[in-house]
């Protein structure tokens, strides 16, 4: 036996050794059938027992199983899904016309009663999803053969938006029959879950009776792989076809690969230096503006994030309709920063600040060190404290801090920044860390809530965003991106920046 033959024999030998040491049988992955199979590397491991009100619902949505009355498209527009149309009857009243002939995998028909029961169940759980809670929704009831009526507590133009969230997805009533929620065989989407392997993944097959038409793939699989580097390696080895959220450090290698395409899109998420506007010296706008001018956001995007993100132009990415026109990156200008500090009248002895960061996003510790260095150039003394988020949260919520680095999504419950703006910058906002409060901004937000036309709302958001940047309420650092690696054999895959869709009816794979 020559050396080459020896090498060929090694895998078989290793398998033999493995079988010998194993205790008990283990699952062996099934082979692909006609139509092909795509394996999706998911970073999140569901842990909430498939409670629809939790982020577990997003995994079901990405698996092509869970659908709601509406859906959010790739460009954030709201499209019909299980409801074929809707109408706002009055400022607080909406009617949704259900699609005809939709059935769950178990054969149960989708009816207004089923929809109404499940949405009411959501309203009655101990912790309803913030976007569809009793504080927003007054009632949900069947109102005809195919109609569901939803009444809100206050005028609300976002109801279709709220119903596009995976948290308002509809499962067959049988999914709730036992003492735990069981999505296996109880969805309406293009794929049916045939098996759940706890804490490892989901096995899918196409829904032959999908209301949306023919589904191309025969099978699918979702594998939970929490480590980003491992997801990257698995997509390179061909063990999986799609890897979600590739870490910046692995991007260069992925981009060199002949077998993969890397899709990078801007995420609705901004990393910012939150400044406590309530206490000295950061209650002084000139000091905040000095901090803003001293920080090199372009350099940070290039050096700390290895060019995988874009420098921030404000709260919102320039590619969104909420960024002010001509919004641009504020360049580092130490001269201007020193001048602003001098104008502020704050003595140098008061420029001792604590900068908080949290370990759940490891890059924030590096970012803190860079900001510390850049602010020291102004003569500021900055002490860094890096801890688990849970440990610094009480300080943040009570306003007992100077500066904190945070990564925040700005489209959470609905595909509209109203929620984030109200929570982060409204006088009564529950996450108003900066302590910014201006009745004029509150009035603008109140006005926006009642505006049906998106463009009219967007004009208000642009105005507020410009104001936040101008007054340096916080220092916006970078707009985050999502990078996903996809095997060349996969067709019709698109990154959904709102993290709602992966398996859809047109997804295809060529044979490897």
């Amino acid at each position, binding site marked *: 036996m020559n050396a080459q033959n020896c090498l060929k024999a*090694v*895998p078989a030998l*290793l*398998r033999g*050794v*493995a*079988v010998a*040491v*194993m*205790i*008990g049988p*283990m*699952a*062996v*992955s099934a082979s692909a059938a006609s139509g092909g199979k795509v394996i999706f590397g998911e970073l999140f*491991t569901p*842990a*909430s*027992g498939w*409670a629809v*009100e*939790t*982020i577990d619902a*997003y995994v079901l949505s990405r698996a092509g199983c869970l659908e709601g009355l509406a859906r959010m498209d790739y460009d954030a527009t709201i499209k019909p899904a299980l409801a074929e149309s809707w109408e706002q009857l009055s400022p607080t009243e909406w009617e949704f016309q259900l699609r005809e002939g939709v059935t769950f995998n178990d054969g149960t028909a989708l009816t207004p009663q089923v929809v109404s029961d499940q949405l009411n169940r959501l309203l009655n759980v*101990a*912790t309803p999803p*913030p976007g569809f809670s009793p*504080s927003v929704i007054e009632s949900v009831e069947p109102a005809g053969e195919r109609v569901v009526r939803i009444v809100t507590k206050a005028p609300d133009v976002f109801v279709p938006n709220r119903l596009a969230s995976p948290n308002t997805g509809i499962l067959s009533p049988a999914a709730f029959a036992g003492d*735990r929620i069981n999505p296996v065989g109880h969805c309406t989407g293009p794929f049916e879950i045939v098996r759940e*392997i*706890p*804490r*490892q*993944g989901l096995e899918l097959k196409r829904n032959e009776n999908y209301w949306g038409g023919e589904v191309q793939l025969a099978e699918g699989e979702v*594998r*939970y*792989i*929490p*480590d980003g*580097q*491992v997801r990257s*390696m*698995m997509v*390179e*080895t061909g*063990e999986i076809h799609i890897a979600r959220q590739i870490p910046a450090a692995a991007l260069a290698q992925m981009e060199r690969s002949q077998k993969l395409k890397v899709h990078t899109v801007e995420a609705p998420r901004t990393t910012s230096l939150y400044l406590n506007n309530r206490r000295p010296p950061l209650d002084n706008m000139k000091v905040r503006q000095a901090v803003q001018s001293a920080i090199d956001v372009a350099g940070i995007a290039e050096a700390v994030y290895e060019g995988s993100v874009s420098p921030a132009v404000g709260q919102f990415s320039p590619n969104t309709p909420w960024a002010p026109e001509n919004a641009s990156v504020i360049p580092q200008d130490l001269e201007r920063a020193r001048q602003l500090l001098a104008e502020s009248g704050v003595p140098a002895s008061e420029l001792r600040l604590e900068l908080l960061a949290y370990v759940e996003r490891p890059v924030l510790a590096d970012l803190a060190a860079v900001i510390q260095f850049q602010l020291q150039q102004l003569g500021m003394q900055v002490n860094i404290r890096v*801890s*688990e*988020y*849970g*440990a610094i*949260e*009480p300080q943040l919520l009570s306003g007992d801090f100077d500066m904190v680095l*945070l990564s*925040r*999504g700005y489209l*959470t419950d609905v595909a509209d920044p109203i929620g984030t703006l109200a*929570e982060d910058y409204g006088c009564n906002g*529950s*996450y108003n860390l900066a302590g910014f409060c201006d009745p004029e901004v509150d009035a603008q937000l109140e006005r926006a809530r009642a505006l049906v036309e998106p463009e009219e709302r967007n004009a208000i958001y642009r105005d507020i965003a410009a104001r936040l940047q101008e007054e340096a309420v916080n220092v916006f650092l970078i707009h985050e991106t999502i990078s996903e690696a996809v095997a060349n054999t996969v067709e019709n895959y698109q990154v959904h920046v709102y993290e709602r869709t992966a398996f859809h009816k047109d997804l295809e794979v060529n044979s490897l």
Partner: protein
Amino acid sequence: MPIFILRRFAVLALALLVVTFLVFLIPYIGETDPVRALARARFGRLDLDAATIEALRLELGMHRPLIVQYLDWLRSAVTGDFGNSYMSREPVVEQVWSALKVSVVLTLASLGFAFAVAVPAGSIAALRQGGSFDMATKSLSQAFVAVPEYWLAPMSILVFALYLGWLPSAGWRGPESVILPALALSLRPMGYFTQVMRASMIDVLNSPHIVAAHSRGLSVRRTLIAHGLRNALLPVITLFSVWMAGLLGGAVVIEVIFAVPGMGRLVYSAIVNGDIPVLQAGLVAIVTLAVVINTVTDLAYTVLNPVVRIDNATA
């Protein structure tokens, strides 16, 4: 012997009682509010309103005094009911049992690798003391002890999965998927076992009864197998039991990197998510196993070593 066994069981019960109380306190002595941690994990967001937090606190009964919560929990735990996970609302016992099975396979496989290499390597190194095999064994075993798992694991994936394509990178889907994590986990105990085996074998080879066996004309191989190996193995068996107890819940890095759904990952996630029932049941399971394994080791010692047997009998 019965008194010895009874004494061991009394120690086990006492250890468990102390551990359960300490385990119960863990989530409350940190800076993090466990209810907030739980809510963040459930909803995947930082901005949670106070009403949601309080509703969750009430739902979980975490507004009650700590001692009431502990006694309630202990009463149920004694009957094997560790309650439901705060995250999934599913019975904790099922989650722990499923993770424990995985961890037992991984731990036995890795220690099996370590033992299979260390015993012959350590013995041969002792027999050829000062020779090139001995030098190579010493150097390699020291390197194995020093290599950190967070480096070794990705490297082994790079070599065996990416470049050679022999084994899967991660997951727990069949016998092949056990090899890489078990190998990565086995290196450090392999290094320790080899060093201890070598030192122990050198001691045994220099002991009077081995010298006497030689002088009676027994061959080196027969002397080693009949008299040397059994005695030299005792310290390695002790080490084996210590590592067994440690790896059952302490392979977090390997389990996260290789996406192995074992005890380490379960307990780690429970800590991060504030899932107290899972954390408590997981730690109780790990500690129970550790104490049981130590007890079994003690009993094995009495079988293997007559001196220990006499000591226990007279104690």
